[in-house]
């Protein structure tokens, strides 16, 4: 497959670190390797760089720097926000509200808390993946201590009405966390406007390094710590700082927060063009997720009668990197819980393809997908007993 075009359309999984991000990180791997807690020169440099990154992160979110805590990524931030709140407030109550389509970093954390005696309400979503804010309000009881609803879904791209839910949470004085891992850089995020108490983000989703994330904790909120040890991060998150990672996060979030409408306009246009083209050119397809309330780079389409993993393998042979919600790729051999929650039949979830576009995609990339995808789909349909059955039924 050498010399072949490589088209990366899996930006929801991870992104390629921006060259400026890598350039910003290198000095902190090479020269300023000091431990930020130490007092000599190279350590002070590191300390300062961490604080600059904190300021950049705060500025992008409309928060104060003292409200930003660095973590090892989205998973840790979600775990900390949820477990930390649950244990800090367990005298007040034991009830948590979340949605059926959260990332496993949230769902499995809630599942674990259920084993510790907490109760969790998993709110359903509609056919487009939207949580209904009045469902949230109805689910609140005197025992409710936490609402955790993702800002946008990683599979189908649906953007949730976070500001509305934030209002409800404030009216009822319930702590509100949102997993904004997919959102930073895609749409403007302002913690005050959203009315959130806690917000998770992860650098590798916006052209930063892997293993670097942050949790925004609104001033005055005191979730218990997840990691105990040294006094780093104002005694809230122990462990020597991942200085280079944090610097990379800072640079990446600075870039991600700049001119979001301008930067995403092109991606959005490619998304709409490719989506419309696929739905028009390839029969028996449907768009999963919301038509409008949708992340700018997200396309999720089901191709009836075929299975997603075989689609990915063929696309890969043509240099296209994508993703699917098929049971065959999940490891657990269950179809995506998100596609199930929006009411897709098992076999339609099976044939789902997620293409997530990003900043480096070009019109040539779109054209390459257009030239390859119809052939891939028909090749698999030609060997599908379901497709065969459908054609027979048509004839008779």
């Amino acid at each position: 497959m050498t010399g072949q075009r490589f088209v990366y359309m899996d930006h929801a999984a991870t992104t390629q670190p921006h060259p400026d991000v890598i350039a910003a990180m290198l000095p902190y791997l090479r020269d300023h390797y000091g431990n930020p807690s130490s007092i000599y020169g190279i350590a002070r440099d590191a300390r300062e760089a961490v604080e600059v990154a904190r300021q950049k992160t705060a500025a992008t979110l409309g928060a104060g720097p003292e409200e930003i805590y660095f973590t090892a990524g989205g998973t840790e931030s979600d775990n900390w926000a949820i477990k930390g709140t649950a244990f800090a407030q367990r005298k007040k109550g034991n009830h948590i509200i979340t949605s059926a389509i959260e990332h496993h970093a949230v769902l499995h954390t809630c599942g674990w808390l259920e084993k510790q005696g907490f109760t969790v309400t998993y709110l359903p979503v509609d056919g487009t993946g939207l949580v209904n804010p009045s469902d949230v309000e109805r689910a609140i009881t005197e025992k409710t201590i936490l609402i955790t609803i993702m800002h946008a879904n990683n599979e189908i791209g649906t953007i949730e009405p976070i500001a509305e839910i934030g209002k409800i949470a404030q009216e009822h004085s319930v702590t509100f966390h949102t997993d904004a891992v997919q959102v930073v850089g895609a749409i403007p995020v302002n913690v005050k406007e959203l009315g959130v108490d806690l917000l998770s983000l992860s650098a590798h989703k916006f052209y930063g390094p892997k293993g670097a994330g942050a949790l925004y904790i609104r001033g005055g909120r005191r979730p218990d710590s997840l990691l105990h040890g040294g006094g780093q991060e104002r005694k809230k998150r122990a462990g020597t700082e991942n200085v280079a990672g944090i610097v990379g996060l800072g640079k990446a979030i600075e870039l991600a927060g700049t001119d979001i409408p301008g930067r995403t306009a092109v991606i959005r246009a490619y998304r709409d063009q490719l989506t419309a083209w696929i739905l028009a050119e390839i029969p028996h397809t449907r768009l999963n997720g919301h038509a409008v309330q949708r992340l700018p780079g997200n396309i999720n389409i089901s191709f009836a009668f075929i299975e997603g993993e075989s689609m990915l393998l063929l696309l890969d042979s043509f240099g296209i990197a994508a993703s699917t919600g098929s049971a065959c790729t999940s490891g657990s051999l269950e179809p995506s819980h998100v596609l199930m929650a929006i009411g897709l039949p098992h076999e339609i979830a099976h044939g789902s393809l997620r293409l997530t576009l990003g900043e480096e995609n070009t019109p040539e990339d779109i054209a390459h997908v257009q030239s390859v995808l119809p052939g891939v789909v028909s090749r698999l349909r030609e060997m599908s007993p379901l497709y065969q059955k459908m054609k027979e039924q048509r004839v008779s």
Partner: protein
Amino acid sequence: MYSKKVMEHFMNPRNVGAIENPDGVGEVGNPVCGDIMKIYIRVEDNRITDAKFMTFGCGAAIASSSMATELIKGKTLEEAWDVTNTAVAEALEGLPPVKIHCSLLAEEGIHMAINDYRQKKGLEPWVEKKGTHHTHEEGKEAGDS
């Protein structure tokens, strides 16, 4: 994650399609992940002279169908009955543990096609030997993103 052999059979599957008026057909569904495999056989003098398949499933399921139909062609019905999922997986130079059940689908498809043939001939269907094959072992769950 797949062996070269699996990828080779997946990219260039042998025996894709249906046989017109087949002597035996087996259609099996996968209770684990919901996939479907259909095996067609042509039988002459107790020997499988042609085999074809149609599969709705993953790369391993398609490669298993391709390999399984290759393995049974030219074999007597008795010999073909004894082609196990392990034999299919071995011929494919191994399958990841979570994908073993996909090769099982091929074994079951062959058995069903053979019994379909036997029943059409008014013969007793052969019974499955229980507990000889592996179902899928618990694989580690991949991360979602």
